[in-house]
């Protein structure tokens, strides 16, 4: 690692390898930058905008901005966290996120990020969109009510599983959704398997394994034990 390859993140020195993004370097260093659509195993998507930081005074997505020596990056400032909280509130009102009845509660990235950013309410009026579930597959349930359109399942299915089961499609806040690549539009009519990488990639409670409900009780789950900002190293690339 080049000794000059250091940038400042909220005043902290962050070393990086040439070609790494701000997000990759920060995560490797163990410093949390809030994010939803970024995953260390895949190329950055840059769509959720939660990881927006200020680079030398200008807004930029930390998952798509290459680290440069001497950069001055602002991350957990009140200004940026306020904007992130507003983005989260929009995520919560445009889907149907009812945590008490969700099997992903406590292990959910959206929920843990909202805890981290102290989101106390949805603030906006609820959309309550109609999003039918797909329970056709013998081993997997798809509950689209919780989808945040991060498209990680699309990428994982294409790049790791070589299957191309999912696609983003449609327009507008209520029209855009994940489509299933089969004639019927049902997951049962694809070659999707519970062992696929895409089956375990969902950061929220859309792609769920059947017959595995509540194996770990609420209150003892990943983000019940420690906040998401204290578990960064586990996600390090």
């Amino acid at each position, binding site marked *: 690692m080049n000794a000059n390859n250091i940038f400042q993140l909220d005043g902290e020195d962050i070393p990086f390898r040439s070609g790494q993004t701000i997000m990759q370097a920060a995560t490797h260093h163990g410093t949390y930058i809030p994010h939803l659509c970024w995953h260390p195993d895949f190329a950055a998507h840059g769509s959720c905008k939660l990881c927006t930081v200020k680079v030398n005074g200008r807004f930029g997505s930390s998952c798509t901005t290459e680290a440069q020596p001497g950069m001055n990056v602002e991350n957990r400032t009140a200004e940026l966290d306020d904007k992130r909280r507003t983005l989260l509130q929009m995520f*919560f009102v445009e889907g*149907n*996120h*009812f*945590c*008490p*009845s*969700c099997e992903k*509660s*406590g292990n959910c990235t959206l*929920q843990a990020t*909202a*805890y981290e950013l*102290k989101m*106390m*309410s*949805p*603030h906006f*009026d*609820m959309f*309550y*969109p*109609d*999003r039918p579930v797909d329970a056709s597959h013998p081993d997997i349930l798809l509950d689209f009510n919780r989808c945040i359109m991060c498209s990680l399942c699309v990428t994982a299915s294409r790049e790791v599983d070589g299957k191309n089961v999912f696609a983003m499609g449609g327009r507008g806040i209520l029209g855009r959704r994940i489509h299933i690549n089969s004639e019927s539009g049902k997951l049962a009519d694809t070659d999707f398997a519970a062992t696929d990488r895409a089956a375990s990639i969902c950061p929220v409670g859309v792609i769920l394994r059947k017959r595995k409900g509540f194996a770990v009780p*609420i209150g003892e789950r990943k983000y*019940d034990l*420690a*906040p998401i900002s204290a578990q960064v190293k586990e996600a390090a690339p």
Partner: protein
Amino acid sequence: MNAAPSPPKKLRVATTSLAGCFGCHMSFLDIDERLLKLLDLIEFDRSPLTDIKHCGPCDLGLIEGGLCNAENVHVLREFRTHCKILVAVGACAINGGLPAQRNHLDLRDVLEEVYQTEHLLGRGGIPNDPELPLPLNKVHPIHEVVKVDYFLPGCPPSADAIWKLLTDLLAGRTPTLGHGLLHYD
């Protein structure tokens, strides 16, 4: 001039459950022996604990549950009119919660299935007594109708989270919930 100072005025608190299950009130009672300490500092106005029917001037109003019928809206507005600080307590008050699971269904279909068509359920038709409040087309969280000052998420919020909110408010602080107390489930 030399009269003993009067004890500090107790804060007046009203509570209600709208479209909720009273689980948040049960969690409130779960603060256990701290209730005795609390009763030195507050007195209850309208609440299921007092059976007072209408809310008078209060310092604090705690609302459990969302809005599923016209009466819920009337009660909520009464609370907002009379309470200096209004708190949405629990998932249902904050995002509609469990009752809002009917929101993607047509209200008429739901009523017909429950009261008319469903085997072993349908008895006597859809109730239409004028005493009954009319259901709303959709269930709504309370912040869509009145200004809400603070939110206390959870299903229900834990007794410790409720205690933290109350003690913060009684001390004149903005309530904050740290890790372990802020929960949506």
